[in-house]
Every structure is written in C-alpha cells, then in structure tokens.
C-alpha cells in the first residue's frame, strides 16, 4: 500500500470524527466517499466487509492513532449507497459491493474500448474482456463478473450490445 497517495485529510485527526456541524460534515463526507472509492479502486477490490474494514488502513490511520468508529463507517457507507456506489449484499449490512464507477459508467468505458478496437459486431466472451491479453492495460481488466454483467446490461438497454450465456455481442 506504500504507493497509495492518501489525501491530506487522512492525516488530519478530526477526519476520523463525524462532524456535527452540517456544513463541515458535508465536506467531510465528500472527502470520505472519494477516499473509499479511490482506495477500493487502487486495491482493485469490488466488495467491502464492514468487520474487516474496521481494521483496514482505510479507516484506521495508525500513524496518528485515529480510527473511524463503526457508526462512522456506516454513516459513510450510507452516503455512498445514496450516491449509488455501493450495494448491500445482506440484510444485516455486513458485506457490500463497491462500484467505484457506476454500471453505466463502466458500460461506457467498455463500449469505448470496443469501438476503439473495432470490435463492433463481434462476439467477445466475458473471459476475454476481463482476463484477456488485450485488456490488461484497461481499467476493467480483472473486473468481477457480476459487475461486468451489470455494465453490459446497461449497454444492452441502450441497444449497444446483446448479452449471451458466456459472451456478449457488441453493435
């Protein structure tokens, strides 16, 4: 994690206390949301376990010995949920799926790659898209299948693709 560039707020102790002042809290929330998403993106993680997250460096800055409380974590996750970046996987809210890009955005990214490589009207397998050699330098390389499917569904809704069993056809 040495190469992850933490934002300045991460070294600011009040960042780890949910601020009561509404205006201040709004700014704090923005900072937290973007930190969570960039961190997840950096570590290429598509899900988050709340129990695990409590001890992860994301919410615990050992250098200044500050830790975000469980309530605080939920406050931030609620905010992310409101913004459509996470989805709870269970009713007790222990596991969630994190999408640092929304499925629509992913759809666009994939489609622009497809167009750039002239692959319109061809069929790709899911494996090709996420694990194939041609996509290693793409952001969606290594993407989990559930998210890929969702992204492709949005393209399908726009009549830009047709999803099949294990593959997809782009138009």
């Amino acid at each position, binding site marked *: 994690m040495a190469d992850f560039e933490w934002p*300045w707020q991460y070294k*600011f102790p*009040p960042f780890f206390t949910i601020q009561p*002042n509404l205006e*201040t809290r709004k700014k704090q929330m923005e900072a937290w949301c973007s930190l969570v998403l960039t961190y997840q993106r950096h570590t290429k993680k598509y899900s988050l376990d709340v129990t695990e997250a409590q001890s992860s460096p994301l919410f615990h800055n050992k250098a200044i010995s*500050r830790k975000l409380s469980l309530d605080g974590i939920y406050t931030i996750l609620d905010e992310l949920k409101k913004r459509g970046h996470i989805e709870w996987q269970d009713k007790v809210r222990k596991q969630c799926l994190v999408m640092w890009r929304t499925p629509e955005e992913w759809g666009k990214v994939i489609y622009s790659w497809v167009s750039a490589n002239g692959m319109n009207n061809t069929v790709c397998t899911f494996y090709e898209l996420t694990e194939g050699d041609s996509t290693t330098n793409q952001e969606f390389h290594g993407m989990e299948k559930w998210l890929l499917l969702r992204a492709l569904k949005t393209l399908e809704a726009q009549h830009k693709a047709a999803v099949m069993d294990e593959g997809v056809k782009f138009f």
Partner: protein
Amino acid sequence: MDRFEWCDGNLYTGEQLVEQQTGVALYDGNEKTAFEFGTLILTTHRLMWRDQRNRTCVICLPLSLVIYLEEQPSGFAKSAKIVVHLNSAGANKGSGPFNQSSNSFIRLSFREAGEKGFLRRLQETLQQKKWATSVPGPSGTNPQLPRHRPGIVGIERSLDQRNKETDKNITAAFADLRQLMEKAKDMVNLTRTIATKIKDKQGDITEDETVKFKSYLLSMGIPNPVTRETHGTGDKYYTELARQLASMLTKPVEESGGMMTLTDVYCRVNRARGMELLSPEDLLHACELMEILGLPIRLRTFDSGVMVVQSQSQNEEEIVNTTTVLVSERNSLTAEELSQLLGVSVLLARERLLMTEKHGGVCRDEHIEGLRFYLNLFLHPPS
C-alpha cells in the same frame, strides 16, 4: 408454623447475620405451605424467611423456640430437608401468617441444596445461645416507645412526637444563627452610616480616606441591597434588582473575559449581599430583564443549556474569530487548554469552542484522550 411472625427483615441491634440460603420452601409439619420459594436467613437470634418473588414478604421465628433439629436426606424427586421441632410460642408473639397449627415442627426444604452447611451453622448458633445473652430490641427506634401501638391514635401520637422532636432540633440549630443575624444588622447599619457620611462630607475628608472607606464597604458587600421589603414584590423589585446586579457585576464580568456563568454570578452576588440572600429564581428573573432594560450586561443561554451573564461588548462574531485564531495558532486545543489560555472556566471555554464549531470555525476530534478542536480545514482546505 404458627410460631412464625411477620417482620420487616431488618436485624435488631446486637443481632448478626450468620448464614443464608436461597430456594428454600417451608412446610408446616408434612404439609406444603404458600411459602415456597424464598431465602432462608439465619441470624444469631432468629430464623428469617424472605420471599424471593415478593421481597416485602418476610417472616421470622425466634431461635429460642427451637428444641432440636433432624436431618432428612434428599431422595428421588425430593429435596433435602431439615426438620425443626419447636416449643409453643410465647404469649407476646406478634401476628403471623398462621394463627394456629396442629404441628409442632416445621420442615425446611432446600431446593437449591446447601442444607449441609446450613444445618451445621444452625446447630452452632443454637449451641451459642446468643439470644439469651443480649435481648433483642428493634434497632433505631426509641426504646421508650412501644413498638406496636395499634390504631390511628398510635400513628397520630408517633407523628406528633416526631414533629416535636424536629421542632426542638430546629430551634436549637437556629438559636445561634439568630444572634449572628442581630449582629449582622448592626454591621449593615454601620456601613449605611459610613456610606451616608461619605456622601455628606464629600469635601471634608481626604481622597485617601474616601478610598479607604469605600474599600471597607466593598469588603462588607452591598451597603443597601435591593430586597423584597424595600422594593415590593412585583416587576419593580426585579428591575431594581437587575440594575443593581448590572452595576456590581459589569466590572468583574469584564475582568473574567466578558462572560461569567450564572452559578458564579449567584455565588458572587450572595457573597456581596451577605444576609439578604437572593434565591436562584429571583436572580434568574432579574438577569432575564437585563436585556430589556438595556443594561451593559445580559443573560445568554447556550445551546447546551449553560447560562452565562455576558457583557454587551462581547459579541458572538468576536468570540468565534478570537477562538478560531487561538486554535489555529496552536494547531489544536481542548477546552481545558483554552480555559487556561483565556483564564476562564473550563465550562465557558467549552461553550466558546462549541459555538465556534457551530459557526464552522473549528472542527472536532473525539478521541480517548478527550475532545480536541482543530482549525476547520474541511471548509478551509490547506492550499
């Protein structure tokens, strides 16, 4: 079972707790009774049984009635029991749950075990016969008063007695105070004459003497406090009181950083008034009027409910600005540190920080070491 009497569960003087066991049922002879689930308490004088579901239900049995004990070991679906053979009760027995019983023994059923230890202690206690050496009397009450005086007359009489006693105590306590008050009246009169003399002989005595006299008066407090007797009871009393408070408090409030908690004000005012003490309510009413009267100080209630008297020159914006500057100079501050910096109470320092937080000047860091406030970098990010 008819040997038991009701009791309040308290120990007599000289009586000591020896052993207790929960989950004990009482049997009248071989028959079950309603006393099924309770704590059996052995003292040096008595055997007590307290219901575990209804703890006000307590019955007791003097140990002097016990003739001998017998052990019945537990069997299939049967708990261990101790059989207690009893003498017939004495004539002065109090009322109990059973008026008469054909059995001259009771059985103690130990449903939660513990009968071995209890039996041993019971036997030891019976051998020691402590009840014979010290006669139990109910603790706390006056021995002259018979414990049970029946009927309303008895209750009335005991109430009367208690009232008389209180009355006597109060009179004794205040006898000293009355003398003190008479002396104090003289003192107040003295200050009054000095005050008028200063007024009359303004030119005759030197400046030095005037200052001296005035300092005497100050140490004695307010020469002629506004009281209900001198200023009536209505609004006039409060307005006059407010004016007087303002004139005496303006300087100390300024000195203590423009703010003083209402409790401090209360102490100071009553210290200055000496004998004519103010009630907290009167003080509050008077302080509430200060703003309407346009006096240099006024009452202010913080969001947390803390009330302070604040000098008019002190406005919110200024407090927010100075606090923000103080915090930014030192990177972070706790209420304690700020109170030391400003020389105000911790409570007020905290209020200042909370107010500044409300205005977005600072933000908080809640940590095990306490609540710290930092410059609000969220709203004013570092460049």
